């Protein structure tokens, strides 16, 4: 399900399936997208931040189009205890690889992978990013 911002419209609440993973997309070329994500984060229930949220940063291929400071994004990942992934939307290979990664994460968050919980997976991702 795609949305441009949160909260989702309440009229469709009863028709909506359970949400297992929220991927917030930040376009490094648009300061507005960062502000939008920051505002939307306030509408997310705290339980989601136990491994069911990730940040997906796009547009990183072109350093000279950067309107968002990388430090601000790292800080967001730290504050919300969620991993930061990078994707260059224009390159098909990276797009496909990222989609596969997200799908794998989704399977874990939905509980379809026995022995791995969303929380344990996200702490695994974070500790490997710190190294």
């Amino acid at each position: 399900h795609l949305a441009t911002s949160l909260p989702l419209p309440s009229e469709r609440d009863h028709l909506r399936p359970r949400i297992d993973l929220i991927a917030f997309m930040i376009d490094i070329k648009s300061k507005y997208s960062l502000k939008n994500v920051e505002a939307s984060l306030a509408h997310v229930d705290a339980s989601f931040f136990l491994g069911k949220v990730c940040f997906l940063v796009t547009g990183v291929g072109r350093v000279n189009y950067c309107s968002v400071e990388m430090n601000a994004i790292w800080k967001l990942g730290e504050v919300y205890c969620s991993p930061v992934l990078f994707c260059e939307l224009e390159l098909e290979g990276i797009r496909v690889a990222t989609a596969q990664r997200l799908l794998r994460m989704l399977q874990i968050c939905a509980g379809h992978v026995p022995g791995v919980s969303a929380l344990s997976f996200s702490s695994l991702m974070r500790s490997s990013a710190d190294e």
Partner: protein
Amino acid sequence: ENVDPQRTAFLLRKQWTLYSVSPLYGFSNAQLRDYARLLSAFIAAEKQKGLAVEVGVELDIKVAVSSLPDLKGSDQDQAAILVQLSSRSPASPKNSEEKLVWLGWFCCVAGDDLSQNVPEDFTCLPLFLANGAESYTSIVGSWFQKTFDCCFRRLAISPLNLSWMAAMWTGCKVEKTASAMELVFSVPCLPQPLDISYAIHPEDAKALWDTVQKTPGEITQEEVDVFMDCLYSHFHRHFKIHLSATKLVKVSTAIASAHCDGIVKFLQSQYLTGVLMLLTELAISQIQ
């Protein structure tokens, strides 16, 4: 800041295209005249090969290479090197005036980050600025690259860096008759390209910056963000357009202007070194 404004006045109000240059190997300040001779011969040879700049006009290109000792940040920096190409038509008399056709200069202002890390035989002049025909820039560039084993790359300026420049230059004190601060934004994802130009009265901009900046002489990323956000919200209130979703492509203030394609203009000699320091930093980060 003991830059003699008279000596650097010729650098003002010209459009300069920026390049980053990797350290030059075997460059010597004592051989500038020899370099001028060699470059002159190279240009003549390129013309012979048919790479003439102006078709149908036979021009004698004279090369002058000199040093600009005023343009540096500290004593550790290399003095700036100026290359001038002037022409005289062979038909006109020997002592008639030569016309300047191209100007280029290498400089390094507060480039300790780079110069401290290079071996002895290398000279650090990471910033190159060119004014004049691109074909001359290309010929001069190839000669330097061949002779000193260095690499020239166009220096682009990101929107993030442009917003730093907007904040820094707004804070500079200028006389009452300063020109407006202008920001130009390019709107993405439209079938027709659209540019938005946002002009702000210089006193209003300075007043805003003064309320944002906490420590004079120091600027933080947060302060730049707050400054830009104020400008964006003000614009949004009036026009319902989110400038933060567009790309900042050009910043113009009373002391200098800069375009994301790496094109700058210096407008005030008292701030020349300051702007060069920022550009040197950008050039060094592009090289590393």
